């Protein structure tokens, strides 16, 4: 083994002083064995670096099989579509949720002014709507009570449009489908409830075309 073999890795790492660097480079021009060694050390270094790189990556890859997110997303879309089709027709069968109207009516100013801006606001804030359901309650209309028992107001205070591709893997949701999040704000200004509603506008439009 020649005298320079102990300096080859330091030379690769640019850790040698200028004089020694020049000497090693002169030697490498003449010594094919050391050139092979340098190649082997380079490969060992890059393999080690690649191994380290993979030490972080497999956590995500090993976590779940690749088919799980796709099947989950398809299942979620199926359930959402089923809810979308069934819920408006059978309101009495749905679990009763407490109506948020009283809280909203108690603080119309909060609903109108004190809210933080949503990330993506589709509809602007409907201030007058927050107090409207109270009138329905006062009238004691059976229909209104039934509707209020299972659902949020028809026109939510804030709507946030969420593109389906941000929640599901590409291709898992039919093209043109998106979701609208209805956010109900409590009297103290915090978000009280959030409901996702699938929108099939694009889907329906496509089926009407020849």
């Amino acid at each position, binding site marked *: 083994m020649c005298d320079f073999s*102990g300096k080859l*890795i*330091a030379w690769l*790492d640019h*850790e040698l002083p200028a004089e020694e660097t020049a000497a090693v480079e002169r030697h490498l021009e003449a010594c094919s064995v050391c050139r092979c*060694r340098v190649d*082997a*050390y380079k*490969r*060992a*270094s890059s*393999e*080690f*670096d*690649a*191994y*380290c*790189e*993979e*030490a*972080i*990556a*497999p*956590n995500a*890859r*090993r976590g779940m099989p690749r088919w799980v997110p796709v099947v989950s997303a398809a299942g979620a879309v199926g359930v959402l579509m089923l809810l979308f089709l069934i819920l408006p027709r059978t309101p009495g069968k749905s679990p009763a949720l407490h109506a948020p109207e009283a809280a909203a009516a108690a603080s119309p100013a909060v609903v109108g002014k004190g809210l933080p801006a949503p990330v993506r606001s589709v509809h602007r804030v409907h201030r007058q709507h927050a107090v409207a359901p109270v009138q329905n309650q006062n009238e004691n209309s059976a229909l209104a009570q039934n509707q209020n028992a299972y659902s949020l107001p028809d026109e939510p205070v804030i709507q946030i449009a969420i593109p389906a591709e941000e929640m599901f893997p590409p291709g898992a949701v039919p093209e043109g489908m998106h979701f609208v999040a209805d956010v109900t704000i409590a009297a103290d200004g915090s978000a009280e409830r959030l409901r996702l509603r699938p929108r099939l506008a694009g889907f329906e439009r496509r089926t009407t075309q020849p």
Partner: protein
Amino acid sequence: MSGDAAPLALPLSRVSTGACEATTLYRELRKPLLRYLVCLGLSSDEAQDVVQDAFLILHRHLSSGGSQENIRGWLFRVAHNQARNRQNRYDRNFGSPMDTEIDAVSHEATPERAVLEKEKFQQLGKAIRLLTASERECLLLRAAGLRYREIGEVLGIATSTVSDTVDRAIKKLAEKCHV
């Protein structure tokens, strides 16, 4: 300059500079630090915690006008010590990183190539586990882009020792893997 204005102005400018610098360093060094800590044997969550703590300490250090010389080495040293404290606290063996097999086979590879790649990685994994703790730490810090002097500062050893250790470790890997 009036005597009243100076004490207020100086800390504010320091805080602002420190925050800006810490943010830039965070973008640049977060991933290498995480990789180093995970390879050292910490779980992903623990590594994230340690990195966060290290940057918090860095922010305080810069805000209080601490030395800005070799911040990268300083940050790795803080993270290294935090990791060591954490592992001592839970009575774990600091010298057994990379125990898990890494399945780094590309999904696009053909079956034959996938088998070869897997074998190669398993062989490398075995060779890495045969290195001493010091050799592994030196190689990990070197893979993170630290110079020998900085590695020496992080591990508290002389630069010449780092050079010898790296030389020995790379030669062992090259020999074991026949690369």
